[in-house]
């Protein structure tokens, strides 16, 4: 029953990392779109939309992701809607990431001096053009560090999806540890693989910051 920790186990871990990557991409894309909508509604929408967004953010920031995943999968099955685990993960991760990114980006949009919006208005730019050419580019520059910080965290949070049956990197590490009895080797490797996924994100962030700095240099 006890297996050696060898090449086969190494491959299984690397293979399990594909779920971590897939889930992280789902969360990035879903959260990116959702977050932008939340941030825009929160800064400019009607009173009703603003209040709805505040409620959305409070609920999803104030409850654990683990529970959101749990409800999206088991909760929906109990009320009679049988969802596949990938859809459940998609719903929970997107809602979770949207709430956080929405709030981060709202701060960035509000940090752009109000004079910029006024000047754009004076030039006769409509809401869409004002956001697209004046406000968002400036907000994006400030948004890079907190956004990347959150995304790196999100990569690691995908491990929570094991509650609804995903065998991603961390879970595979636990399963392999249970037969090899080599926790240090296994989890050391798991940590190294996470690092290899998160480090490029930090590099991209640094590149983007440099690009923005060059673009705004006088």
């Amino acid at each position, binding site marked *: *029953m*006890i297996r050696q920790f060898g090449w086969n186990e190494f491959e*299984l871990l690397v293979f399990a990392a594909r779920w971590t990557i897939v889930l992280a991409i789902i969360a990035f894309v879903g959260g990116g779109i959702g977050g932008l909508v939340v941030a825009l509604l929160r800064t400019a929408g009607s009173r009703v939309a603003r209040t709805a967004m505040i409620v959305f953010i409070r609920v999803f920031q104030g409850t654990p992701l683990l*529970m959101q995943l*749990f409800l999206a999968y*088991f909760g929906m*099955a109990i009320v009679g809607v049988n969802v596949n685990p990938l859809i459940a993960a998609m719903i929970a991760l997107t809602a979770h990431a949207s709430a956080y990114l929405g709030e981060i980006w709202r701060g960035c949009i509000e940090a752009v001096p109000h004079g910029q919006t006024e000047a754009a208005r004076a030039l006769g730019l409509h809401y869409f053009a004002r956001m697209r050419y004046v406000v968002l580019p400036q907000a994006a520059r400030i948004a890079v560090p907190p956004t990347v910080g959150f995304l790196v965290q999100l990569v690691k949070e995908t491990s929570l999806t094991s509650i609804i*049956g995903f065998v991603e990197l961390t879970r595979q590490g636990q399963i392999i540890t*249970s037969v090899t009895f080599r926790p240090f080797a296994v989890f050391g490797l798991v940590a190294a693989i996470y690092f290899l996924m998160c480090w490029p994100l930090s590099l991209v962030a640094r590149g983007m910051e440099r690009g923005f700095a060059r673009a705004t240099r006088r």
Partner: protein
Amino acid sequence: MNKLKKVVAIFLGLGVILGTGTMTANADALQDIQSRGTIKVGMLVDFPPYGLMNAQNQPDGYDADVAHLLAQDLNVKLQLVPVTGPNRIPYLLSGQIDVLVASLGITQERARSVAFSEPYAAITIGVYGKDDVRITKPEDLAGKTIAVARASTQDTAVTKVAPRSATIRRFDSDAAALQALMSGQVPLVGCSNVCFATIQNLAPGKYNKKFELSSQVQGIAVKPGEEKLLARINQFIDKVKANGELDKINRKWLGEAMPAVLRKK
């Protein structure tokens, strides 16, 4: 892990309340399984030798073998669903799986939320040791040294029955206690049959069981109210106990005969 358990416990409660609606609406899981032609069985994959992932990354172990026999007996295809300790009962109650063959120890608390079959497996705690140590009962421990994992069930059990002159050496874990046995520091160890299977694997034939201290039986679980399915499963368990197939599985995964506690009705 604690936080996780709490969250799960809360929603489990919620699940039971909400779940009763869907359960009564669809009360014949056995018929569902037969018309579907597939039985969905939840099992642990991180609890060797009962449940594990083998080198081919497929669910394997004692539970997997029992599940295969069950599917064969019902004449349906088997779909194994890997579950974890904290989410196995939610999987069952929310209907994602039909039955749990997941080393679920039969306890009163659990019997309130799921329906248990007759026991199909048992984790026994006993005293094991080198072949040449001749003891058969707790009194024989007098003057001997025995290793246990500190504050474990086996620690409590050994401490209760051992005579005063016995020396109990307490280690931080089962692994450390077994290490002490294998390196010859102690001649005896108090541990579960699961741990003992590990030593049998590492050093076959050098150690054997001396006597049993206590046992915890495990059952196959179904949703409460699934009487027909449960009756069918009990019929299956009686059959494999009688025809020796369960004994074979015990020998294969635990290195010893089916425990006596499973024989009695």
